């Protein structure tokens, strides 16, 4: 027993969850459960048993995968390199566009009448999936890597601009005020007060996006935007599972290498 006589007055009760908060919990989790149960039929969950009953198809596929055919490896590596180049250019262009957008979308830097429309554009860019963007660009510039680069650029610009602006919004305003107090202009405040504070975070975000873009560039190839994905799609359609196996191995190795490289770089930065 703790002696409370020195403080005087009654000891208040420990805090407890209010009825409203409790009801809200029930509503949220109960709602999630209802939606899950309701969706069982719509997502065809009843056909899970086909995994086993269709075992013949799976066996052919697995047999092909277990015997990778390396005769065309030179082409596959070339195409993988092209995919990485698509991701690299897409990310690079996105960073160039996202820096001014990220600054313009930060509430502590830009006036509200700039922030609101820029955020609206950012949301639009992010809400259109890069697959849809790629389809649009294939119509505009034709089949090939350029459509992939442009799709990745637009989608990544939306994502990076949002991340960049959030980094800017969380800076310490003291150093910015310190720069302002010397009689510096608005541009100087950004270059010397804001950018040094956000630079490591911005670089880290950009590297992370490059990682994930090298994965999405593979997928974009499936719809004709060039690179290893296109070769993968062609081999799949030709039931050439031995080549598919080789391609998958090359993709996994390449993406893992990029992940490791960019993680090592980000570790050095932070």
């Amino acid at each position, binding site marked *: 027993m703790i002696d409370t006589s020195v403080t005087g007055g009654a000891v208040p009760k420990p805090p407890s969850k209010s009825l409203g908060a409790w009801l809200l919990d029930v509503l949220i989790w109960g709602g999630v459960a209802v939606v899950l149960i309701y969706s069982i039929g719509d997502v065809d969950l009843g056909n899970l048993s086909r995994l086993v009953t269709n075992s013949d198809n799976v066996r052919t596929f697995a047999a092909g995968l277990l015997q990778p055919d390396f005769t065309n490896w030179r082409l596959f590596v070339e195409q993988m390199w092209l995919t990485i180049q698509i991701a690299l250019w897409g990310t690079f262009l996105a960073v160039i566009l996202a820096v001014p957008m990220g600054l313009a979308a930060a509430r502590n830097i830009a006036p509200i009448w700039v922030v609101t429309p820029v955020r609206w554009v950012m949301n639009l860019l992010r809400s259109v999936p890069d697959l849809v963007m790629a389809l649009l660009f294939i119509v505009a510039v034709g089949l090939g890597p350029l459509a992939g680069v442009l799709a990745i650029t637009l989608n990544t610009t939306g994502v990076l601009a949002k991340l960049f602006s959030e980094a800017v919004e969380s800076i*310490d305003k*003291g*150093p910015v*005020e*310190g*720069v*302002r*107090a*010397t*009689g*510096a*202009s608005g*541009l*100087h405040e950004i*270059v*010397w*007060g804001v950018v*040094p*504070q956000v*630079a*490591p975070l911005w670089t880290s975000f950009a590297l992370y996006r490059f990682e994930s873009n090298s994965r999405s560039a593979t997928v974009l190839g499936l719809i004709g935007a060039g690179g290893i994905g296109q070769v993968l799609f062609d081999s799949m359609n030709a039931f050439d599972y031995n080549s598919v196996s080789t391609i998958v191995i090359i993709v996994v190795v390449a993406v893992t290498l990029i992940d490791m490289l960019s993680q090592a770089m980000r570790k050095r930065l932070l």
Partner: protein
Amino acid sequence: MSSSAAATAAPGSLATSLVLARDVSKTFGQRKALDGVSVSVACGEMVALIGPSGSGKSTLLRSITGLQSIDGGKGTISVFGQTVQSNGRVAGTVRATRSRLGMIFQQFNLVGRLSLFSNVMLGALGRLPGWRGALGLWPSADKTRAMQALHRVGVSDYAAQRANTLSGGQQQRGAIARALVQGAEAILADEPVASLDPVSARKVMELLVELNKRDGLGVIVTLHQVDYAIRYCDRVVALKAGKVVYDGPSTGLDTARLIDIYGPEFEDAFWETKA
């Protein structure tokens, strides 16, 4: 604008006036941080602003540099005869005025990831063409100046180090060096020693006194510790709840007056000599 300021210039003419604040009010929500404050400081004076926390010291200092706008109405602030604020609007010429004032903050406000040298170099921004400053193409004369300033305040050994690796006292002296590179004609210091240990605090205060006496820089410094104000400053302006309650020589501050300013617990502000 400047004619009305000249009319109320109490000590000295317009040319020798550092700060002229007339009828300045600032409201944050419901609270009046400044309530009709009028203060004038001549060039070359060393003035302490004291008062309990929330009395409006920092608000007054930040209003003088235009980092904060004051309430609309008849309140005006001018610095070196140039209007900084009137009718609740910060003047368009404020950048030119700021470049003549060196501002020192409690949290130093150096850019942590830049080297101490780069931070001090930023003092030259107000004088350089915009693009040169933005690209960091500092003229070599300014670089020399920066090293001289760092040497003067005694931290030139740490020039290449990142600012956030330095101690509070070193950072605060770096901030003063930045004001020197700026070619500031006066220094406004907002609680410059509040985050420092007593030894560093004394060094910083002595540096400010030296800049005032030897270089003739005007100094306006807000302080928590009354004994620092009495020891280092000739004149003290005391604020209480946004109003000026004392403005005179620091020798005129006796116990009765301090109790009036700080309330009966004023000894808390006197921690150093009691300890």
